């Protein structure tokens, strides 16, 4: 086990109300952009992307009445840095519907280098040929290493590389909050 430096909270970026408003806005944007909920499906990236995908699906159900399917994607088997990370931990992909000819909205909490999304695109396309893939992100923190751009963004957040962004969600962390953290004694 590598010991990571202890992190301390530097600033709060979103509180629970702001996080909820951002998701409501993204839900509306998804419906607007796709002209409704027809043939839409959500696929969340483990772990918090899945939770956010379920919340977006609930928002769309409230706005439009459509019950959109939500799948879970684990990208461990597609990472480009498997060799650098110690033993992989696979937690499984579970997409119980066909993505063929669906407009799939990929959901993750933080967009950083773009490498996770690159892996997710490969993983998704191995499961079938979707009509299109769109990307919804709660926090875009910049520093892209690949030509990847989100379609829906909760908040753009300029950060430095040594900082990290923690998305805390009720279902996992008991609170809805986004904070920037930095290493202690740096």
């Amino acid at each position, binding site marked *: *086990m590598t010991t990571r430096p202890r992190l301390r909270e530097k600033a709060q970026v979103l509180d629970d109300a702001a996080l909820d408003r951002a998701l409501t806005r993204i839900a509306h944007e998804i419906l607007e952009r796709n002209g409704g909920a027809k043939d839409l499906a959500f696929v969340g990236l483990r772990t918090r992307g899945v939770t956010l995908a379920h919340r977006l699906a609930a928002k769309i159900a409230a706005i439009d009445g459509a019950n959109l399917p939500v799948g879970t994607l684990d990208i461990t088997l*597609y990472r480009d840095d498997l060799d650098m990370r*110690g033993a*992989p931990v*696979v937690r499984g992909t579970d997409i119980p519907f066909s993505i063929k000819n669906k407009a799939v909205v990929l959901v993750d909490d933080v967009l950083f280098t773009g490498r996770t999304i690159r892996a997710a695109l490969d993983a998704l396309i*191995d499961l079938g040929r979707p009509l299109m893939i769109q990307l919804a992100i709660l926090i875009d923190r910049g520093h892209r290493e690949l030509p990847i751009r989100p379609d829906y963004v909760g908040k753009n957040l300029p950060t430095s590389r040594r900082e990290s962004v923690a998305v805390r969600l009720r279902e996992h962390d008991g609170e809805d909050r986004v904070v920037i953290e930095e290493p202690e004694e740096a």
Partner: protein
Amino acid sequence: MGWTRKDLLSIRELDAAEIVLLVETAASLQEIAGREIKKVPALRGKTIVNLFYENSTRTRTSFEIAGKWLSADVVNFSAGGSSAAKGESFIDTARNIAAMSPDVVVVRHASAGAAEILARTLPCSIVNAGDGAHEHPTQALLDLLTIKEHKGHFEGLSVAIVGDITHSRVARSNIHGMRKLGMTVTVAGPPTLIPPFVQELGVKVAYRLEDAIRDVDVIMMLRLQQERMSSGLIPSLREYSRYWGLTLDKLRAEARPDVLIMHPGPVNRGVELSPEVADGPYSVILDQVAKGVAVRMGVLLLLAGARGEAA
């Protein structure tokens, strides 16, 4: 916790958390078998050599499929068509194969300890695919995964392992794994096929089939190797099958209605299992085989997917 071992040589050397990690990794890889495109890029560029000195259908094939579904290059070596037939020693053959820089060597050999010798000699990861009467860890892992999926948990389950316990590496690996996971194990068979001091592994012994299978959650029938008869350990196949063969009548009379019947294969139909039992509703034998691929993917992924600081 993560995986930190270079090799998988036995279940005995693992702790419960490592066994659970292997089973859970395999469980989450099962979904790949149902895909339209059965391939993920996790082990792209890795080379896996299957080094088999004994016959095998299930194990070799499932290691090969597992490696290929993970995008590794898989090479099969069987002793028959190789320089081993010209008298090259086991270690020399292995060193030559190692010189071709494989990432994982999967080895099956008739001698107990063969995998361990390779692990000490070669720099790559070694998977024991069966060494003599010692261990067969991936078989035990797929048995455990099958049990987990049908019963939902391990702790407190009771298992009867029936047949030739003395010569069975499957029995030995399963006994170690099941005991570590909190299961109760009873071994049963003719006294000539029960090793002395087997109780020291933490198992109970029964000398009647009916006593062994009463009220257990799982019955694991072992293959009777026909050569045991010529060596005088059992009087005749017919007698063995009369006393130790599992039939529908015996099952209905003694076993629980939700019992699982397992068998590592290949089945001697009409000897240790009657065909109605082998193909019957309690049997999960083919499910075991399907899970074998997922288990071997999990093992290969954990061994070859992590050549970083942890390995």
